[in-house]
């Protein structure tokens, strides 16, 4: 009997419903990989629809979890509260963001894959879908993880397939080169993070975030500097994924080299992984060391914004792939805005509205995800005819396809934060208010300057859309999935502009 009990106590009870979303995505991924072996070249597109269905299913599974807080993989015995996998509102929102982002990327990928198949540039479909789904699974796992081990594993599961995805265009020299750069940078960052984790483990003796939070309070004397170094080093890995400044060098090269849907995926879901990790680590694990990571993140945010916007400013519109590179630099700039609320959380008084300030990051991220994916979708549309995807190729898009030009203009102005992009404006206002509330006056002024610099290149591109086109405006038919992607993002953007409360509610009462 005792053995039974002891064995019973050894086997953890797993709450399958809580774990459902990432598991479904992973299982479907495996199914796609296996199915790829049996399918002939002709009906490879079925895999696309299967993956799409899998993602939708995972999305639906989020619904039952909305009511209660569920935790699983908890420690047995006295410290029952420390669980590795917790599903709370924050997790659900981020999982919604990840799965939504993956869904839109899938839509873009279906067109990209079909074009690649027509132009017989071999882009292996089976592997593509498997890698995409596995990366999505990793990304979905991360927000729910509540201990450092799961966090690092989730980070790696999200990143490794991404390296492969970037390098998937066989025979394309730039794609493999981009993959290598992305790989080397990411791996180094992960090594540094692991080093940080080990130091934190040394100082606190536990891996669970909540316990780390308590133990960090009373670290004895000489381990103190070790703990502080550990805290900062742990942030590096996630700051790398968010593409904060000193770790942003890989972004333009990778986005240019990677296939466009993958670049879109990285800019949205990759970044989501990064700032979710940052929030969990800083807000849940290291509240005691707020005076360490607070100023660090504030400096990072200011630097990221400025460097991102200023570099985007200098993009010449006639350079090859300048459109994608501009979107890359703009995503670096937007990462700066995402970091501000987290930095503000460091300055807010400890226990009252700590989570309310990071809620602003979540709200801004939702807006950024929808709008950025929309912009990438239109870039993909234009990229289908103009191979080089230069910004100057967008001249006179209004004459060719008025609707997509209007939509792109709307997205760009949302990113710039100017009406008619009302949701962009209010998201920025939320971020501004967290900075002002936390007393980060200088950061707010830097943000103000960055809004102006950002407007320059966003509006330059928007103005270009409406200028008279050179040469004959070639009417071209837009494939179904691409139209679906653009339509979804556009409707999402306009709906949110109408009722920003849907997104900004997370900024109000925090994300428990």
């Amino acid at each position, binding site marked *: 009997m005792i053995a039974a009990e002891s064995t019973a106590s050894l086997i953890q009870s797993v709450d399958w419903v809580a774990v459902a979303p990432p598991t479904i995505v992973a299982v479907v991924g495996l199914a796609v990989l296996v199915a790829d072996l049996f399918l002939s070249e002709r009906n490879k597109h079925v895999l696309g629809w299967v993956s799409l269905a899998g993602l939708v299913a995972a999305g639906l599974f989020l619904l039952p979890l909305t009511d209660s807080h569920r935790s699983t993989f908890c*420690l047995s015995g006295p410290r029952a509260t420390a669980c590795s996998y917790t599903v709370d509102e924050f997790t659900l929102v981020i999982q919604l963001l990840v799965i939504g982002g993956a869904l839109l990327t899938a839509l873009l990928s279906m067109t990209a894959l079909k074009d690649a198949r027509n*132009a*017989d*540039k071999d882009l292996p479909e089976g592997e593509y879908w498997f890698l995409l789904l596995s990366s999505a699974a990793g990304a979905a796992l991360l927000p729910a993880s509540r*201990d*450092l*081990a799961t966090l*690092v*594993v989730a980070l*790696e599961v999200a990143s*490794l397939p991404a*390296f*492969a995805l970037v*390098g998937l265009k*066989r*025979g*394309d*020299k*730039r794609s*493999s*080169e*981009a*993959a*290598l*750069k992305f*790989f*080397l940078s990411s*791996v*180094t960052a*992960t*090594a540094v993070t*692991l*080093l940080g*984790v*080990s*130091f934190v*483990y*040394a100082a606190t*003796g*536990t*891996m669970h975030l909540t316990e780390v939070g308590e133990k960090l309070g009373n670290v004895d004397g000489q381990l103190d500097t070790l703990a502080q170094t550990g805290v900062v080093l742990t942030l590096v890995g996630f700051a790398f994924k968010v593409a904060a400044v000193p770790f942003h060098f890989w972004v*333009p*090269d*990778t986005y*240019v*080299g990677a296939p466009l849907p993958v670049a879109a995926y990285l800019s949205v879901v990759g970044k989501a992984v990064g700032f979710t990790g940052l929030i969990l680590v800083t807000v849940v694990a290291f509240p005691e060391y707020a005076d360490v990571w607070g100023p660090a993140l504030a400096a990072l945010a200011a630097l990221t914004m400025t460097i991102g916007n200023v570099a985007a400013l200098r*993009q*010449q519109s*006639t*350079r*090859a*792939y*300048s459109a994608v*590179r501009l979107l890359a630099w703009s995503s670096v700039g937007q990462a700066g805005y995402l970091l501000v609320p987290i930095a503000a959380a460091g300055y807010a008084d400890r226990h009252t509205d700590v989570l309310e300030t990071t809620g602003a990051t979540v709200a801004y991220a939702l807006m950024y995800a929808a709008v950025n994916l929309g912009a990438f979708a239109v870039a993909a549309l234009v990229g289908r005819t*103009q*191979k*080089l995807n*230069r910004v100057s190729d967008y001249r006179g898009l209004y004459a060719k396809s008025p609707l997509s030009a209007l939509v792109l203009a709307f997205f760009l102005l949302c990113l710039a934060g100017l009406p008619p992009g009302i949701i962009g404006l209010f998201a920025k206002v939320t971020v501004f208010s967290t900075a002002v509330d936390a007393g980060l006056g200088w950061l707010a002024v830097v943000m103000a300057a960055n809004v102006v610099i950002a407007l320059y290149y966003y509006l330059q591109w928007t103005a270009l859309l409406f200028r008279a086109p050179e040469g004959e405006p070639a009417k071209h038919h837009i494939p179904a999935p691409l139209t679906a992607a653009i339509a979804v993002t556009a409707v999402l953007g306009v709906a949110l502009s109408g009722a920003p409360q849907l997104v900004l509610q997370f900024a109000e009462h925090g994300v428990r």
Partner: protein
Amino acid sequence: MHLAYPAVLAVLLFCVGLYGVLARRNAILVLMSVELMLNAVNLNLVAFDVWLRDTLHSGQALTLFTIAIAAAEIGIGLAIVLAVYRNRGTSAVDDLRDTAERPDDGGDGDGVGPEGAAAEEPDEPAPGASQKAEATA
């Protein structure tokens, strides 16, 4: 044994790996030094686990995970390096400069390149090769 020995050894190992990553030209050697860094962290974790006498042995559990992750990384890393080697004939890390927007010299080069390509693009469908060729211009 006092904790300091393995900790210092781990940090030294980490620094050696770091040097390898920064100094080495050949991609394979860079991968090896990355592997070295990860193993330094494993050593660190195991040492702390023993020192803390952690009943849950979470340090060693994480080491197992890290080893698994390192294996996966090396798998992908080698695949990528192989692809780079096949495409460019060299795996030297520091002359992979194509995706960068060459700031000045290539400035107009890039500009001219695509123009040239765009000009000759419409008249004949660019086979994969020519697409590659002009991209490297």
